[in-house]
């Protein structure tokens, strides 16, 4: 891994550039410190989010798509982003920046894996969405109940195993049979999931990675 100093000296950068750079390196404590510094400099929270945290995360997301970095780099960058957002959240609320929509997310019944799902959650939160995370091994009814209770626009289902991906079909059918039909969109993703499978079970959207999942969720939430 190349060190930051080989690329550039953070002290010479603007605070927002420093946030982006440290975030790309997954240095959560540095990111937090720089976010605090930016707040102290009077930079609006929304600007820190967009031009600091999300800028860095977008670069990492792009590098991941291009196979230039791998899952661990994305994970530590996303964690750094989350730490930064935690610090920003009260300021975002005070500034009247509203949540852009609500997503219910979980790994389907029988499946106990959550790296991908957690990453998608963090990316969605970065986009300003409220995310209700139901965890792993989530039965169909729990997805529906949570969507109902939280007035969610999107249910996002994750599966890692070919053995469990069939559960997604049950979620689609249950939503179809409920009063949420047509109102709540269903997104599917996870290693074995493909566009062909999404089409076959009648889910609304498939996305191949966490960054595009967050983009599509935002699109679905703001479309209505």
């Amino acid at each position, binding site marked *: *891994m190349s060190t930051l100093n080989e690329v550039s000296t953070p002290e010479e950068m603007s605070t927002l550039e420093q946030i982006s750079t440290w975030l790309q390196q*997954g*240095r*959560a*404590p540095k990111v937090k410190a720089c976010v605090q510094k930016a707040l102290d400099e009077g930079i609006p929270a929304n600007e820190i989010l967009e031009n600091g945290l999300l800028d860095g995360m977008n670069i990492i997301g792009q590098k991941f798509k291009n196979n230039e970095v791998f899952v*661990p*780099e994305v*994970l*530590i960058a996303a*964690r750094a982003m989350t730490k930064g957002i935690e610090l920003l959240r009260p300021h975002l609320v005070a500034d009247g920046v509203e949540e852009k929509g609500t997503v219910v997310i979980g790994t389907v019944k*029988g499946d*106990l*894996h*959550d*790296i991908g799902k*957690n990453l998608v959650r963090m990316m969605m939160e970065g986009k300003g969405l409220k995310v209700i995370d139901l965890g*792993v*091994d989530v039965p169909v009814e729990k997805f529906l109940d949570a969507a109902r209770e939280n007035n969610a626009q999107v249910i996002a289902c994750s599966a890692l*195993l*070919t*053995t469990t*991906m*069939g559960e997604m079909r049950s979620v689609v059918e249950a939503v179809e049979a409920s009063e949420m039909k047509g109102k709540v969109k269903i997104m599917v993703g996870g*290693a*074995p999931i*493909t566009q*062909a*499978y999404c089409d*076959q*079970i009648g889910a609304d959207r498939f996305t191949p990675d966490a960054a595009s999942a967050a983009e599509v969720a935002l699109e679905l939430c703001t479309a209505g």
Partner: protein
Amino acid sequence: MRIAIIGCMVMNREISRLVSESRNPVRVWWLRQGLHDTPDILRTELQRALDEIERENSLLPENLRFEAVVLAYGLCSNGVLGLRSRSLPVVVPRCDDCISLFLGSADRYRQLFHDLPGVYWYNAGWIEQAFTPSTENYARQRAMYAEEYGEENADYLMECSNGWMKNYKHCGYITCPLGDCPAHEAYARQAAQDFGWEFTKVEGSMDYLDALVNGPWDDARFLTCPPHSRIEADYSNRKFRSVPAGLDDREQG
């Protein structure tokens, strides 16, 4: 019938035994275990082996040519989807992965997957050829993370990569039908103890693997993908179907 098998090293012992005793002359192309973690690479490696077998076939005297290629692979993270044959039928077992093959049938695997929620499987092939959860392997993995991503991120990455273990509840140890190795069972028992899983010993079976190597490849258990076709998912318990594939550059040439 002369058969070419593309085998995952995780089944090396079982398939090697069956091959040595088979009435069919069989030649095996081995691929390393673990390719299912990167399904696109698995697909590329499988297609490369398939292409090599077909090229090899064209160089053999007619009476020594293969009549079918058998894949010792299930869906394996969808790595098998999209493979195509040109001149030979390709046989693939209708299952998710090697665990069905080790257990003797896909139905038995589904039953046990249901009966033992959150089960991590161990057997001889996995212990000998793969990364399996163990205290030593995790210490190695953490040291790698610390070196690569810094001490401040090592524990977090371990938690991310291995968080699933806390959700798992069972350790399924599949015995080796060729003669079980006490050291392997002890390894699996130790892992179960270290990670707080309930240890369950399950008898391995050669039935599915035997049918894979020796046939007959009944449609209930195997897809036989004819030449000039592509393997597709059908997203049912049958797992696969074949679809005609148009001429590609090589065939046109």
